[in-house]
């Protein structure tokens, strides 16, 4: 299986811009299926970015983040070729982790 995590991390001298897209249903628990039963909530709760072992961004998410969630941020430092470790865990305890090279 391919990773659920897609990252574009680009060093721009002073800062590194990071964009992430994650494949996840982000079911809110408020939507009914075809038979009228509620689809149970299934959403990412925590998403963490680490550069050189140090967290640079932590997202705590609820049910209102869109399906296949996207987030963009920037941090100071970071050089081309550095590792950026990205991990998430959802409300069902499922998780994924991947490491990307800063471009």
């Amino acid at each position, binding site marked *: 299986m*391919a990773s659920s995590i*897609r990252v*574009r991390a680009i060093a721009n001298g002073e800062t590194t811009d990071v*964009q*992430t*897209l994650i*494949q996840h249903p982000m079911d809110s628990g408020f939507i009914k299926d075809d038979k009228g039963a509620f689809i149970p909530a299934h959403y990412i709760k925590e998403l963490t970015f680490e550069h050189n072992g140090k967290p640079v961004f932590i997202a705590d998410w609820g049910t209102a983040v*869109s*399906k*296949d969630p*996207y987030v*963009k941020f920037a941090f100071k430092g970071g050089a081309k070729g550095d590792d950026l470790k990205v991990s998430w865990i959802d409300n069902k305890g499922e998780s994924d982790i991947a490491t990307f090279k800063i471009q």
Partner: protein
Amino acid sequence: MRFWLTTLAILWVAHPACAADGIDPAADARAFRNFFVQKFPNVKLEDFANGPYALNEDMRRQWEEKEQFPPYEFSLEMGKELFAKPFVNGKHYADCFPDRGIGVRQDYPQFDDKSGKVVTLELALNRCREANGERAITYTGDDMAALTAYMAFTSRGKPFNIKIPDDPRALEAYENGKRYFYTRRGQLNFSCATCHVQNPGERLRAEVLAPALGILNAMPIYRSEWGSMGTTSRRFTTCNSQVRGVPLEPQSDEYRDLEYFLSYVSNGLPISGPGSRP
């Protein structure tokens, strides 16, 4: 199928005016393009391939933001994998297409002189599967959407290049597609043109309607409403049910002819698919 052909034949005989009018696709395409250019003088011609985003600034900004990392990325990637995956017999989709299927989306639909019918890209993909001993996949499903998304992506920027050969059957298919486009149907009494010719840029509920010019250049489309990528077949069938009509079978003659007409009148406009829409 036979019923329909018979009905068509009857229509043809009953309305000799149609035949007498003469079918002139090139003139139609010019008129079609002029209509939209005059209606939206500030929109660049190639921008019509971006549908409602060409017409509405607030929506355009939302689109541009999403396009930085579009939600259809996963479907596109799946399409690339599916396209590259060999069939059981070892052959590939690429073996069924000119240029191994890369950068060819703008040439579909085509008129097939053997069968005397229009062949869309979706149909060509399934014919390729069947020719190689694989089962056809559903036209409205995610796999077909992903495959056509990938093929469109490799063709981005290439202008639609639909050909209508000098064959009365091809002209008839074109004309049938045109008639389907303008014919009011469903309980709401809407034609395709009601929304996409008379009212593009207007809101129908929350949706800003896309102009018919360039509308298929963006196919397939990821719709936020669907939360997934959808094929041209899916779009046509949902259009029919939205006007409270019973949709036809995907890739029925009518839909194929409609796709032929709509693609032809957008000749010269770039492929922009896969697109994203609300």
